């Protein structure tokens, strides 16, 4: 299949796409603000995969390599859109911290995903890279070209927003139930 992809055979390229597109679209949805943007990231990412497949050295898993390309494509897309929230903007965000461990468990994946997608772009990137990809703040700083302290700050803000929204969503659901 990989040989066929390198030779430009469409059927093999489609097989590779079909094998990984579902997982990679999940990754793209986490980094994107909405469905259409995730679709763009997936498309650009797979074009890079096929154009650079010859450079894959088989030292790690192919899935990991494709995943890194998707993450990098998403970061490239959103790095330029990152902006620093002013203190006023931060203050205006309504954040209330409650303890609703049990209530949040009733939320489904799509609801959780929606909460991440609604995060401001710089918070979303840092939260994804730290909590889901496992990068350190130093690595995130290098990737996003921000300082380590900014990365820590963004993660803290992301967590606060997520906790608040998680609680609100849970309360709504509990009332319905």
């Amino acid at each position, binding site marked *: 299949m990989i040989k066929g992809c390198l*030779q*430009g055979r*469409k*059927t093999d*390229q*489609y097989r590779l*796409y079909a094998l990984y*597109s*579902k*997982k990679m*679209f*999940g*990754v793209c*949805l*986490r980094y994107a603000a*909405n*469905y*259409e943007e995730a*679709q763009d990231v*997936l*498309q650009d990412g*797979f*074009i890079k995969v*096929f*154009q*650079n497949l*010859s450079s894959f050295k088989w030292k790690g898993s192919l899935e990991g390599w494709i995943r890194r390309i998707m993450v990098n494509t998403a970061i490239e897309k959103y790095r330029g859109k990152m902006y620093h929230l002013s203190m006023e903007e931060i203050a205006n965000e309504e954040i209330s*911290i*409650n*303890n*609703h*461990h049990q209530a*949040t468990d009733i*939320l*489904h*994946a*799509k609801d*959780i*995903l*929606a909460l*991440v*997608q609604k995060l401001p772009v710089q918070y979303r990137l840092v*939260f994804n890279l*730290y*909590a*889901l990809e496992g990068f350190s703040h130093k690595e995130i700083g290098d990737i996003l070209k921000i300082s380590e302290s900014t990365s820590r700050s963004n993660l803290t803000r992301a*967590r606060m927003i*997520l*906790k608040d929204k*998680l*609680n609100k969503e849970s309360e709504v659901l509990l009332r319905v139930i």
Partner: protein
Amino acid sequence: MDNQYIDNRFKEELQGLEVNPPVETWLDISDALDKSTLAGRNYVVMRAAAAIAVFVVAAFSLWMILFEQSFQDDPIVQQAAPVSMDAVPSTGIPQTVNSEMLLADLSQPAAIGNYQANLPQPLPVFNSVLPHNIQSFPPGVPNSLPRRSLTSPDSHNLSGNFQPLTDNAVSDVQMYLKSEENKSFFSNLNLGAHFALQYNYRAFANQSTGSYRSIPFNSLESQIYTFSAGLNATLALSSTWAIQTGLHLNNMGQFVEGILAYQHPEHKSLYNQNQIVVTSFGGVTVYDNSHHFSDQSSHRVLDPDEYLDPKILDALKKTDEGLTQVFQFLEIPVVFRYKLIGHHVDLHLKGGMTASYLLNRDVYMGSSIFQSPIGQTQGLRQFNFSVTGGFAMQVPIGSRLYLNLEPTAQLFLNPMVQDGLNTGTVLPYSFSLQTGVSYRF
């Protein structure tokens, strides 16, 4: 709710998240890959191909220049520099040379020089003048497939993101893949026709070492413009390589300068035997015996051993000047094409071999071939082989119809003159711009 709980909660739900992307995403990726052949490794191949093409053209040009130079350096040829037109006898009947006299003279280089110094100057040169863009869907993709629409972004709100593929869409993609896998021979075939205006001349691979070494063919012969036409079939071997063949009718040849034709006013036959005119392509046997041919610039006319009454000679009138030799070939080329650029307009590099069968070897008086031939070139090889190269540009003018523009060079590999007069090794070549249309199945 501590930080660890938040991180773990999101990680649990999102890390293994799998969502079916929309069907049209693959089609957009496929289209983008088709249009990006310049990118990546193909760009390197394209640069290599372009470098090879430049090298071949440069080598060919250098080769031509060197042959020209070696010919001009020939001491005998230098002595053969023609003199003035005023040297033409006032009677209007220029001196012609008997073949025996010519052979005798040529055995004495000094004599040759003296003889040629008295030859009249060549006349001015009169050349014979004769006259793939698809939309986002690749071909074969059913139109029922949904396309991404950015006009209604709300149609894909989050709650609607987890929709499975519809049965119709899955079926359409499967059909598309099946059709891609089962592409038949004809789906890779491209049929077309072309017409080309063509520049024709010849190169000397070796100078003549025989009896006619002293004749400065290079300055007494010149290029002609002709045409070629043909039918072509191209079969795609891969996304970048294709093989092309066809059936072509190709006219090549040259113009022979300084040969004057005289005719009896009453068109009476002057000779019982044929005159022969020596050219670099061998001897032209003139069947029209009502003409008397004379060489103004060298000693290329071999008269039959017949006595022509001086009274008749005085009565002859000049009718034309120069001869046009035309060689008509039926050709079967086998050419490989490599796609250099595959955007809206395709650009291919092409190269291959051509087998040529000589159909016609007529010779015409003057520069027009739209008249009856007066003779034929003798001793030519019936089967010949040549090398062909150039570029091919395909411009889409319809869904499957293409306009083709192909600058093409052709050089014969074997000497055309097989036997008869020993005038050296002559290789015809041509430059043409093939223009035509083709249909892709």
